[in-house]
């Protein structure tokens, strides 16, 4: 549905995006993760044809995002991260205006989402709205548009927790309707809750692509306290698919992808004091690329 091939955007000597190659499949929720300046918004703006790639190409449904931007935008609805609305309009007039820019068909649906689902007062002027209320209004229109693709740039950044849950439900509903959703954000649990796959970006580069279903079903974390330093194994049997993620004295954090029965059998043979088993969260993956101890040197060759 969306594909980029060595997509690069440079401003002078500064690379805002470098050689991004990825594919977003139809009907999936694709998470874009990374701190400010990692290239998420640049990627989105390139997909919408707002900026021209320095090199490489991006396409949506087979249409070039720069050369056939109009055709691309017919199939895409977008929620900007830095939201600025027209203060002189009422909420309803704003939805009507945006709807008219797409033929006018989505106004009733947008008003219904805003009024009944997100509880926006549509008769008030936008200049009297809080930041969160403005975001809800723009989200209503994005979810109402009759399009194949939703691109949401930090859609929950100004929302209260209950509104966030509603938005995540709307994202799930969009996926159920076979819409493709690109969801950019900083709040990892939210992305984790809805994304089918996530891309982790750092300084304009794609660092890692993760299938969340595979991660949830296969990967477990095993925290083991061994009976002293000499009890900590130097090597792990290959068939167990066990790998150390972190070692701290006699405590080891292990990643395990294999059979749990074999794991328990192996643990029974070890001199173990305590064991805790859990699933991995996105934060640990994210921290591999953006953790407090991560330096640029580690990724220089990538």
């Amino acid at each position, binding site marked *: 549905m969306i594909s980029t091939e060595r997509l690069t955007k440079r401003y002078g000597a500064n690379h805002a995006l470098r050689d991004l190659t990825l594919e977003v499949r139809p009907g999936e929720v694709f998470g874009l993760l990374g701190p400010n300046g990692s290239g998420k918004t640049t990627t989105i*703006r390139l997909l*919408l044809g*707002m900026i021209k790639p320095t090199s490489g190409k991006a396409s949506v449904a087979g249409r070039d995002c720069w050369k056939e931007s109009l055709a691309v*935008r017919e199939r895409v609805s977008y929620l*900007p*991260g830095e*939201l*600025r609305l027209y203060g002189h309009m009422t909420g309803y007039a704003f939805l009507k205006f945006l709807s008219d820019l797409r033929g*006018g068909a989505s106004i009733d649906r947008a008003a219904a989402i805003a009024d009944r689902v997100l509880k926006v007062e549509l008769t008030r002027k936008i200049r009297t709205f809080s930041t969160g209320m403005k975001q809800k209004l723009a989200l209503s229109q994005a979810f109402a548009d009759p399009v194949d693709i939703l691109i949401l740039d930090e859609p929950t950044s100004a929302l209260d927790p209950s509104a966030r849950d509603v938005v995540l439900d709307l994202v799930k509903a969009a996926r159920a309707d076979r819409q493709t959703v690109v969801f950019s954000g900083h709040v990892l649990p939210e992305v984790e809750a809805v994304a089918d796959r996530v891309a982790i970006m750092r300084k304009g580069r794609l660092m890692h692509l993760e299938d969340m279903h595979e991660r949830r079903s296969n990967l477990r974390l095993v925290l083991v306290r061994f009976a002293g330093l000499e009890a900590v194994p130097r090597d792990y049997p290959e068939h167990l698919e066990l790998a150390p993620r972190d070692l701290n004295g006699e405590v080891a954090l292990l990643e395990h992808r294999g059979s749990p029965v074999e794991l328990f059998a192996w643990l029974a043979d070890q001199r173990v004091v305590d064991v805790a088993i859990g699933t991995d969260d996105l934060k640990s993956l994210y921290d591999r690329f953006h953790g407090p101890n991560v330096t640029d040197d580690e990724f220089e060759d990538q």
Partner: protein
Amino acid sequence: MGVFFALVRKQLGETRWPLVVLAASLFAMSWLTVFVTCRMERRFKKETDVAAVMRNRAFLRGMGGGSMDYSSGSIELAFWNHPFLIIAIVIWPIGRASAAIAGEIERGTIDLVLSRPISRTTYLGSQIAVMLIGLLILALALVAGNLASTIYNPVEKPPGAFQLIDPLANLIALCLCCYGFTVFVSAIDIVRWRANLFGAFVTLASYVIHVVANIPSLENVKFLDHFSIFKAYDPVGAFAEGGPKLAFNVEILLAIAAVGIVASFVAFRYRDVPSNS
């Protein structure tokens, strides 16, 4: 076309109050030109000696240039050279031009509009349409002010509405010219104030150059007038003579406008639209 009209409607809604204020100002100024003309004519009638008549004519020439025919219409239109009136009307094209692209980028609203299926050409076209509608309203306000004031301030030979078309064409061409060079800066910039500053500076500098170059005692700087857009703006000449000179003036101003507008379409089509953050 629905998309185009939705954009036009939105922009007119946003600018309606500035437009109303400008139209009211121009109506009042136009009223004032007839009022002053009426008072001047009454005073001139009282003076019978040749020296006074010559002095009065010299005064009128200073206001309106060499083509002054001393009719009521020419005296009224001489005030269309007044900086207050020119400022009041060129504010509109310069303001609309700077708001068209740079202004929308600066306040961040262009993202929402251009993320919809709207071509950049349609978007800029709608901005130009709104500017033209506003310009038409301001021109009508000028004519209405003149005609309404004539009822209360009778002048010797009041010009009819149709006689004001030629000078109005010259004034509208001047406004389009200002729009042309300002919208080009707007199309390549990301902040509104720079486009505003550029438009205002070029217009003001051009006006000052025109005034200085036409001071009779400064013959050696008369050539500077060729560098002023106001050389092609002569409402009194357009009223009194019309014809080829007016057509030439309008063509010059429209040519500058066309170059600016076409260049802005091209620049906007191929530029990056950055986020406002």
